[in-house]
């Protein structure tokens, strides 16, 4: 059975339903599954809980699902780049759960690894620890955080082979490897699909067992903050 689909719409076909929980990889706009997000919007599924470190920008990335009012709730660590997000949140249309970034990453990792919860020092004594179980280990207080899983994980990788073994590129890796493990169904979009054997088996970042569907896309790769240095004159 081939895991390869001809386009993002085909890769999502039949899967999205109202009320689902969706994970979407990326940090800012770096390493986001931009084609699968468009296909999810076009699916029309509503009341989605979206787990992603950020919420995209107006008109691009997860900002598209906000504009179309398909997102009911976001679980994120930072959402500062999006006016429509702010408007919906302040008007009460959108629920928001902030997680510290490392706690978010570990909750997703735990969800894929069969670990229902873990104790962390992060957030002890702050609002994020309110109402959660605390426990001392060697005189230090930790807070219990629980695992996260998704109905569908949308992942962006650099290259896949036909088996779904994945390699990411530079800082576009970020949340993608954990999300690939934590979805009941994981769909990956890549820049290139190669034959099995062409990727070095010692350098696979995500083994194909986590990957259900693969699509090869073209990418805008929008840059949020273009910072450069000047070449010194000779």
């Amino acid at each position, binding site marked *: 059975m081939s895991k390869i689909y001809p386009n993002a719409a085909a890769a999502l076909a039949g899967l999205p339903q109202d009320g689902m929980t969706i994970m979407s990889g990326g*940090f*800012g*706009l*770096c*390493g986001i599954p931009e084609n699968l997000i468009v296909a999810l919007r076009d699916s029309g599924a509503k009341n989605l809980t979206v787990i992603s*470190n950020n919420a995209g920008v107006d008109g691009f990335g997860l900002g598209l699902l906000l504009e179309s009012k398909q997102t009911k709730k976001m679980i*994120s*660590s*930072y*959402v*500062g*780049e999006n006016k429509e997000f*702010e408007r919906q*949140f*302040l008007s009460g249309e959108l629920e928001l759960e*902030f997680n*510290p*970034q*490392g*706690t*978010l*990453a*570990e909750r*997703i*990792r735990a969800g894929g690894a069969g670990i229902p919860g873990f104790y*962390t*020092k*992060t*957030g*002890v*004594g*702050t*609002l*994020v620890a309110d109402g959660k179980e605390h426990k001392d280990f060697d005189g230090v207080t930790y807070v219990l955080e629980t695992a996260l899983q998704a109905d569908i994980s949308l992942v962006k990788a*650099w290259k896949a082979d036909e088996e779904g073994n994945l390699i*990411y*590129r*530079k*800082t*576009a*890796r*970020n*949340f*993608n*490897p*954990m999300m690939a493990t934590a979805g009941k169904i994981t769909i990956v979009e890549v820049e290139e699909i190669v034959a099995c054997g062409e990727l070095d088996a010692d350098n696979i*970042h995500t083994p194909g067992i986590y990957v259900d569907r693969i699509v090869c896309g073209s990418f805008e*790769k*929008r*840059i*949020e*903050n*273009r*910072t*450069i*240095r000047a*070449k010194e004159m000779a």
Partner: protein
Amino acid sequence: MAWTRDQLAARAAKELRDGFYVNLGIGIPTLVANHIPEGVKVTLQSENGMLGMGPYPFEDEIDPDLINAGKQTISELPHSSYFSSSDSFAMIRGGHINLSILGAMEVSQNGDLANWMVPGKMVKGMGGAMDLVAGVRRCVVVMDHCSKDGRSKVLKKCELPLTGVRVVDLIITDLGVFEVDKVGNAPLRLIELADGISVEEIAAKTQADFVVDLK
């Protein structure tokens, strides 16, 4: 004269030691990278998944797959490595990062830090700040001593929601430098004054208890 942003960054850079792995926050802390002392090799960590962060790229080197935690385009170095967000925060939470330099809205005399939320305003989120302050071995805060309306940001007790409890080791403001007893309940120790700043001026602008121990 109070220290400028650049002077603040230069003072914070004196906390760097040869061989350190360091995470720099957004804003003035980012400028610390411009003041690394000669002969000191530090490796900068970017919590979105990189060690060995290089300078901003030349225009023809810009790569959308290569950004820092402030979502700015950056470059890589020969010793750089990339990893996932969970690996990144494992090295932060696990105490492998020597030093974090970050900004603050308020800091208290026992080392509590508030830098992510003002009630009644749109909250953008804590990002990785709570993980960093809970996990790194030493935490240095760089900040203005007073708010724009002149109120002290160095307090007996923070008023804003906290980022971490008893996490700050050193406070560098535009007026001076304080050491923090984050384990016990000693007052702050004022160890340095910015150029032309008097102890009296600091006393007038500091709500926290402090003793003077200039070095």
